[in-house]
C-alpha cells in the first residue's frame, strides 16, 4: 500500500491519519479537507464559542506543526466529488483524480434544513466554525430568538442565547425536550432547566413558515397559527450524512456509509465518524453514532483495520451535553422507552445517576451533574439488571 487517501479532516479523519503513522505506515497520506480551517473541535461551538468564552484560536484539534510532523499532504478547502472504486481514484473539485491504495471516508455530516427553509439573513444552522461566528454576531444584535429543535444542539444554543440575555423560545414537535435522547423519565429535567431560566417552549408544535422583513427574518408562524417575533431563528433539527459524492460508486449507502464490524465498506475502503454506519459486534445491530468521542475511537479503529489489524470495532458509546449549569453524560445507548432505575440522588435534585434497563439488561447509565460517579458506573452497561442489586448492596 503506497498511498492512503483520507476524505474529511475533522476528528475521525485526523485521528485516522495520526494512527496510520503511529502504526508505522510509511507511505503517502493525503488528507482532503473540505473546510477552509484545519480540523477544529465542534462541541464548544454551541457553548463556549457562541458565548464568547473560548476564542476560536483555542479550537485546533492538533498543533500547527502536526501535519508536517506526520508527513500529511493536507489539501485545505478541497472537496471530493466522486469515487471510482474500480479505478481506485477519488475525483476532487480541483479536477484532480487522486489515486489511492487505501481510502478512509470521514466526511461527517451537515445540518439538516427545514423543508423550504429560505436563505434569509438571521436564519441560522450550526455545524461549522463559520456558522458559529455568524450566529454569534447576529445573536449579539438580537433581542428575540427562536430555536427550532429541542435536541442537544437546540437546547445548548437556547441555553447560550439565554445566558447572553436574549429572549428565547424553543419549538419542538415532541412532548418534551431531548425526549428521544434521554427518555421519558429524564427529559422532564431538561424542560425544568429551560423553564427555570425563563426560556419559553412551544412543544408539540412545528414551524409552518418563516417571515421576512427588509431581507431579514422577522419571525416564524407555528402550525397552530401562533406567530413568534424573532430577529434570529436557529434551525437545529438534526443532520444529514455527507455521502452524495459516493452515490453510484458501488459502496452501500443507507443513512451513512454501510460498513461491516471492522468499519470496512469495500476492498481497501473504510469509514469512520459521523458518516459511518457499521455493524456493532456486541449489540448485533447496525449503528451510526454522531458523537465526538466516537469519531476519535472509530478513526483509530478504521486506520488500524486498513493496515490489516482485523479487530472488530466494539466501543462503549459515550456522549455528553452541557446546558446552563447541567452536565449530562451517558454511557451506552438509550431507547426512549427503557425502564429507569435511580442509582444515586433524586430525579429532581441537582445531581443523580441512573441506569436504563431493557429486557433485564442495562443498556445505558446516565449522570446528571455526576461526572466522576457515572464514569465509575459505566462498567454496568451490558450487564444483567441483577448487577444493580449487588451495587445497592455494596452501598455504592
Amino acid at each position, binding site marked *: 500500500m503506497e498511498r492512503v487517501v483520507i476524505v474529511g479532516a475533522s476528528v475521525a479523519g485526523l*485521528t485516522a491519519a*495520526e494512527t496510520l503513522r503511529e502504526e508505522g505506515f510509511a507511505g503517502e497520506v493525503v488528507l482532503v479537507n473540505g473546510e477552509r480551517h484545519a480540523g477544529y*473541535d465542534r*462541541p*464548544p461551538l454551541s457553548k463556549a464559542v457562541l458565548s464568547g468564552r*473560548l476564542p476560536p484560536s*483555542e*479550537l*485546533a*484539534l492538533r498543533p500547527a506543526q502536526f501535519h508536517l510532523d506526520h508527513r500529511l499532504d493536507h489539501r485545505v478547502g478541497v472537496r471530493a466529488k466522486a469515487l471510482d472504486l474500480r479505478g481506485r481514484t477519488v475525483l476532487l473539485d480541483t479536477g484532480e483524480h487522486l489515486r489511492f491504495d487505501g481510502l478512509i471516508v470521514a466526511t461527517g455530516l451537515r445540518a439538516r434544513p427545514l423543508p423550504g427553509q429560505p436563505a434569509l439573513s438571521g436564519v441560522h444552522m450550526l455545524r461549522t466554525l463559520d456558522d458559529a461566528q455568524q450566529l454569534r454576531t447576529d445573536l449579539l444584535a438580537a433581542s428575540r430568538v427562536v430555536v427550532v429543535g429541542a435536541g442537544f444542539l437546540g437546547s445548548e444554543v437556547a441555553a447560550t442565547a439565554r445566558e447572553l440575555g436574549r429572549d428565547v423560545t424553543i419549538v419542538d414537535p415532541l412532548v418534551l425536550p431531548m425526549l428521544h435522547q434521554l427518555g421519558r423519565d429524564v427529559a422532564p429535567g431538561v424542560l425544568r432547566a429551560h423553564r427555570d431560566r425563563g426560556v419559553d417552549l412551544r412543544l408539540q408544535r412545528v414551524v409552518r413558515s418563516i417571515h421576512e422583513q427588509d431581507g431579514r427574518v422577522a419571525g416564524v408562524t407555528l402550525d397552530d397559527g401562533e406567530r413568534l417575533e424573532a430577529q434570529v431563528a436557529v434551525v437545529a433539527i438534526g443532520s444529514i450524512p455527507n455521502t452524495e459524492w459516493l452515490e453510484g460508486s458501488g459502496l452501500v449507502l443507507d443513512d451513512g456509509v454501510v460498513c461491516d464490524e471492522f468499519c470496512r465498506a469495500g476492498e481497501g475502503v473504510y469509514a469512520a465518524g459521523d458518516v459511518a454506519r457499521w455493524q456493532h459486534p456486541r449489540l448485533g445491530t447496525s449503528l451510526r453514532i454522531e458523537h*465526538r*468521542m466516537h469519531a*476519535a*475511537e472509530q478513526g*483509530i479503529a478504521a486506520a488500524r483495520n486498513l493496515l490489516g489489524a482485523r479487530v472488530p470495532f466494539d466501543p462503549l458509546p*459515550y456522549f*455528553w451535553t*452541557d446546558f446552563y449549569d447541567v*452536565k449530562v*453524560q451517558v454511557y451506552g445507548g438509550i431507547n426512549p422507552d427503557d425502564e429507569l432505575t435511580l442509582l444515586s440522588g433524586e430525579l429532581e435534585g441537582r445531581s443523580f445517576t441512573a441506569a436504563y434497563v431493557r429486557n433485564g439488561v442495562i443498556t445505558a447509565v446516565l449522570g446528571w451533574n455526576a*461526572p*466522576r*460517579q457515572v*464514569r465509575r458506573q*459505566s462498567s454496568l452497561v451490558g450487564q444483567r439488571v441483577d448487577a444493580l442489586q449487588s451495587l445497592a448492596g455494596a452501598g455504592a
Partner: protein
Amino acid sequence: MTRSAFSKGTIVIKIHVDEHKCVGAGQCVMAAPQVFDQREEDGVVVLLQDHVDPPLEASVRKAVKLCPAVAIRVEEA
C-alpha cells in the same frame, strides 16, 4: 517518584492539562488511572503526576487522543 529516578537517556513525558477546556468526560481516567483523576463536583481533570516514565507513555498518549475536549497535551521533558 522523582525524575532523577530515571536512568540517563530515558525520555520522560511531561503532561499538561487545560482545566478550562476539560468537559469531564473521564476518558483519560479510563485510559490511564495512575495518571489522571477527576474532581468529584464537576468532573474536571486532576493530574496525579505530571511526569511519566515510558511504561505509562502509551496509555497517556491514548488519553490525549481520546480526550473529547483536546484538553491534554504532552511534551518530551
